[in-house]
């Protein structure tokens, strides 16, 4: 909410700078988000008297004026329609700078010299009015600068932009903020002037009000003014409305807005003559009823909407917006003014459902002061009769079936001190609360001998209903900065760190050690990603959790894979020639489990490599990546976190991977992830057809199951190992792991390790066979093996390999 400092000064004496006041308000919980000067850079502008007005020789839209600027008479060309000989207007001479930064210069306007400019209000940033030049009070001497302290105009001002928390509707008015300032500075609040001269017929003869829904509308007050004269509002009112961001409409509507800002009570002015039967009925809308609000929109209503009706039809959407059929027009002569209290929940639901939020609904849904309803009505009638004349009907209508009774809230002094860590006395607490206009009484202490107070908050403090609310007020007025700093001794709770918590840190650290850089991408992706990843119809990649109100279509479902994010990131980097990428993301994916249910959230680790495995350098040639680079990185990671028994096997349903260059990854027989090259179709879908990307994806929950809970030390081998090599020609389809399996099975506990130390993939002409060379380390745990028995075993292993794979020993 934006409010003017000058306006605040109407209700409370402020003897500090705007800056200081801003700090004070912020420290009281009324956060100042912005503080802007207004009307303060008018040093170059002076009052000038219009001496003569002559038509422009070339066009009748312009006039040529001679004006007295105090320093002499100058000629000015001006297009304003409201020029009048003898009136005073703001004048900027050549060289003057306007608040918006424009510098005035002498210029020829269609052949006539103009030495400066007469200004409209908007050109000085005073209001948004551009209907003509600003007319200054006639008693000013020509040449008076506008920067000086021009008392009646109050041009120099500050505008506070306040962020008001939803618990403090009483702060949504100038008077409410002034009241807070009065409370914290110890000043007295000055209330707005209300002067009402009732000269009209008794209100009971003019209008009737019926409340059909007392839950939705616990109080409705109305007054009537007849014979008003519609017109522009005076400058001071338009300026204050402008500074609060409200457009000036006419003097009647402006008064309702002015009082809304001033007192926080939304008001509505009806054209009295357009109210059928001179009646107001407050009722719920019929199902399917429609209504045209004064913005011209047709609104369809439900039985939840609260309506203001006349004898025949709806005339306003209660607490939100008036209707086109009863609004104030230039023909309006008689006005019925509404001031009511509407139920916050009713207004909020209706406003939300219609997507229509107004200054009025904003205040009603937070809760206004039910006891202030008639005061605001009278204030508005007083202003209207002052600005628009008219005859005020005698008396007002005030339907208020259940009178407000303030709550009695018990406040324990010891509880207050125990919660805050303070040692405040009863008198101090009483003082703080009384400064906030609370009614504080002593309570009989017989009950449990504790010092207690009974506190009744004022009616505008709708937020205070419990002891906790009072304790907060005590803390606020005492000052948070005055509460002593202490340190709790934190006792261990029942739960320790979640088991998966050490792992992310460890894995991230290993990944960066392996050369990968961490990325973080949005958890929502495009629903097209499943197609882009080439997911099959039944693939879990399609089990999207949709977002009902996404910001953009490409952020409209929760991700089922980290691959889209990672490939998009590759794209971002490739675009500026970062081609050799090693990236990883640790994050959640989400699978739909059914509507209105929480999805299955799974943590994945996904890594990608693109570009070169090795750049050309002084010591080596460049090498492009292949499958074994990403596989090696994955193997290193798994080994580093203590996983054993990792197997890689060809799988058929590896959606986004190249089927010829990918594998499933298992640990002790359970699947934990996938590794391989991204298929060219997927790369194309992501606009990366020129890039080869190698990925691995690991399911962290599956991984966790395989990590040994504790590590056990294994004694070193006591007896020497014996090494034997085999070089064997195999059909190229035979996988190395199957040979190693044969060795391990046959050699059983004597096999310590099997390493592949050479691979020959045949000559260019013949690639039907490949040669693999293995080094087998034989070792026994309990004795030294002798050469003969090793040779014997080795021979039988070779036979077994030959038999099972059809391979043959390679010569030499």
């Amino acid at each position, binding site marked *: 909410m934006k409010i003017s400092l000058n306006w605040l000064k109407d209700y409370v004496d402020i003897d500090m700078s705007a800056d200081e006041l801003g700090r004070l308000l912020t420290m009281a919980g009324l956060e100042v988000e912005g503080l802007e000067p207004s009307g303060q850079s008018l040093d170059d502008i002076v009052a000038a008297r219009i001496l003569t007005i002559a038509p422009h020789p070339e066009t009748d839209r312009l006039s040529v004026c001679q004006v007295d600027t105090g320093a002499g008479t100058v000629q000015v060309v001006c297009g304003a329609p409201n020029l009048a000989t003898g009136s005073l207007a703001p004048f900027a001479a050549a060289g003057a700078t306007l608040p918006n930064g424009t510098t005035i210069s002498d210029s020829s306007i269609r052949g006539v010299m103009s030495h400066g400019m007469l200004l409209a209000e908007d050109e000085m940033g005073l209001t948004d009015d551009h209907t003509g030049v600003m007319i200054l009070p006639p008693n000013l001497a020509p040449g008076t600068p506008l920067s000086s302290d021009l008392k009646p105009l109050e041009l120099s001002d500050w505008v506070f932009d306040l962020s008001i928390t939803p618990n403090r509707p009483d702060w949504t008015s100038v008077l409410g903020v002034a009241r807070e300032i009065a409370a914290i500075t110890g000043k007295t609040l000055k209330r707005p002037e209300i002067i009402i001269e009732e000269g009209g017929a008794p209100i009971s003869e003019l209008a009737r009000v019926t409340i059909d829904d007392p839950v939705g509308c616990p109080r409705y007050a109305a007054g009537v003014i007849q014979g008003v004269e519609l017109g522009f509002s005076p400058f001071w009112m338009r300026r204050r409305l402008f500074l609060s961001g409200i457009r000036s409409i006419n003097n009647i509507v402006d008064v309702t807005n002015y009082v809304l800002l001033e007192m926080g009570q939304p008001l509505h002015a009806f054209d009295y003559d357009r109210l059928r039967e001179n009646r107001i009925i407050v009722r719920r809308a019929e199902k399917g009823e429609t209504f045209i609000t004064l913005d011209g929109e047709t609104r369809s209503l439900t039985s939840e909407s609260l309506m203001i009706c006349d004898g025949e039809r709806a005339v306003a959407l209660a607490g939100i917006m008036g209707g086109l059929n009863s609004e104030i027009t230039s023909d309006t002569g008689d006005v019925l003014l509404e001031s009511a209290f509407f139920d*916050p929940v009713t207004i909020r639901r209706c406003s939300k459902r219609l997507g229509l939020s107004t200054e009025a609904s904003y205040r009603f849904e937070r809760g206004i002061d039910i006891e202030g309803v008639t005061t605001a009505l009278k204030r508005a009638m007083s202003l209207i009769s002052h600005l628009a004349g008219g005859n005020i009907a005698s008396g007002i209508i005030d339907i208020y079936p259940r009178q407000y009774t303030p709550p009695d809230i018990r406040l324990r002094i010891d509880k207050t001190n125990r919660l805050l*860590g303070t040692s405040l006395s009863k008198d101090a607490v009483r003082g703080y609360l009384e400064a906030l206009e609370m009614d504080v009484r002593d309570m009989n202490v017989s009950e449990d001998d504790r010092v207690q107070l009974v506190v009744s908050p004022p009616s505008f403090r709708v937020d205070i209903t419990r002891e906790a609310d009072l*304790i907060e007020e005590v803390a606020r007025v005492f000052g948070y900065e005055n509460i002593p*700093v202490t340190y709790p001794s*934190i006792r261990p709770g029942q739960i320790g760190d*979640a088991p998966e918590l050490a792992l992310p840190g460890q894995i991230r650290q290993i990944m960066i050690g392996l050369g990968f850089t961490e990325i973080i*991408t949005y958890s*929502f992706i495009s629903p097209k990603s499943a197609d882009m990843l080439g997911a099959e119809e039944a693939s879990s990649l399609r089990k999207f959790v949709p977002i009902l109100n996404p*910001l953009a279509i490409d952020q409209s479902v929760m991700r089922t894979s980290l691959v889209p994010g990672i490939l998009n990131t590759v794209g971002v980097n490739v675009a500026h020639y970062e081609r050799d990428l090693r990236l990883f993301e640790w994050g959640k994916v989400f699978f739909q489990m059914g509507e209105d249910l929480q999805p299955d959230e799974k943590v994945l680790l996904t890594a990608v490599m693109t570009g070169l495995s090795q750049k050309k350098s002084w010591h080596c040639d460049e090498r492009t990546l292949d499958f074994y680079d990403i596989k090696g990185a994955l193997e290193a990671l798994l080994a580093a976190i203590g996983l054993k028994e990792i197997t890689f096997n060809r799988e058929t349903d590896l959606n986004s991977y190249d089927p010829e260059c990918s594998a499933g990854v298992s640990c002790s027989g359970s699947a934990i992830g996938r590794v391989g090259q991204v298929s060219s179709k997927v790369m194309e879908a992501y606009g990366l057809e020129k890039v080869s990307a190698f990925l691995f994806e690991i399911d962290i929950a599956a991984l966790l199951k395989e990590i040994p809970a504790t590590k056990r030390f294994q004694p070193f081998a006591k007896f020497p190992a014996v090494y034997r090599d085999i070089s064997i020609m195999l059909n190229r389809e035979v996988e190395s792991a199957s040979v190693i399996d044969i060795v391990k099975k046959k050699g059983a506990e004597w096999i310590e390790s099997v390493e592949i130390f050479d691979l020959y993939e045949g000559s260019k002409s013949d690639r039907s066979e490949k040669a693999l060379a293995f080094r087998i380390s034989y070792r026994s745990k309990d004795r030294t093996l002798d050469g003969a028995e090793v040779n014997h075993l080795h021979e039988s292993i070779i036979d077994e390999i030959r038999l099972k794979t059809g391979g043959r020993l390679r010569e030499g």
Partner: protein
Amino acid sequence: MKEQLLELEKKAITDLKTISDASELEQFRVTYLGKKGLLTSVMKRLGELPANERPEFGKLANRIKTNLSGLLDELRDKISAKAAGQETILDVTLPGRAPFYGHLHPLSLIIKDVCQILSRMGFRVVKGPNVELDYYNFEALNIPRDHPARDMQDTFYVSDNVVLRTHTSPIQIRVMETQNPPVSIIAPGKVYRRDSDVSHTPMFHQVEGLLVDQHVTFGDLKGTLTCFLNEMFGPDTRLRFRPSFFPFTEPSAEVDIRCVICGGRGCRTCSNTGWLEILGSGMVDPAVYGFVDYDAEVYSGFAFGMGIERLAMLKYGIDDIQLFYRNDMRFLRQF
């Protein structure tokens, strides 16, 4: 005579060190090892020795001769290699054969810092779901369905009752539902708000903290957060606590630190206030205890939450929040 021989060897080795070219080398060879050289002439006097000393002397002379010839050859190689420009000289400024190395995301670094500091103080780290029930995200945090407090956070909905969590606070409820006091937890994680502009991303990170026990005071809240922020931003960091509103705490406090950019004089980062909003906090509202069946007369506690992006921006001087999610290597490489 034996001494004479050893003396000769010593002198020869000294001479050898002064040699820098082939002609000097030849000169040396002639002087010591030539047919008329010094070593030969000493050896010629072998006959002057008693017969029993001769074998030992011969052995020594031979050893010296072999030694000197060896040194001579070595030097000859060096000199000729040098002459041909072939000697290897280690260029220590050539880049090493470096393996790749990666970088942690700056947000991860900050989360790690925050969790480490708070863990040391006794808080345990817990986790919760990102896609959360309305009940945990709002209802049980004292944010009823038709309350204007819901407007404080623009929410992504998955269904009527399921939302993307708008803060990490639902974890408070989940923890208190399953355990009795004392409770001391922190919960880092992603949160989502329907808000995207220059200074907002629809997803961001928070760390939540909660302490509930007997006799926990607002003073304890001030102490804990003072300790934390002094570790995070340095021991001289000034802070202030000012009243605010969160539906699930009362009293509520916003915590500001003295602007780390301008030191309090006022700048764009702090909107000329000299202060930076860094944390939301407060004493747990008794209404929340009602939802988890804690006795508000016995227990009290505080909760706090902070935005990780904001901490990272301040700590690293990052001026554009969008950078965190663009994952540009030119950005990531700096951390």
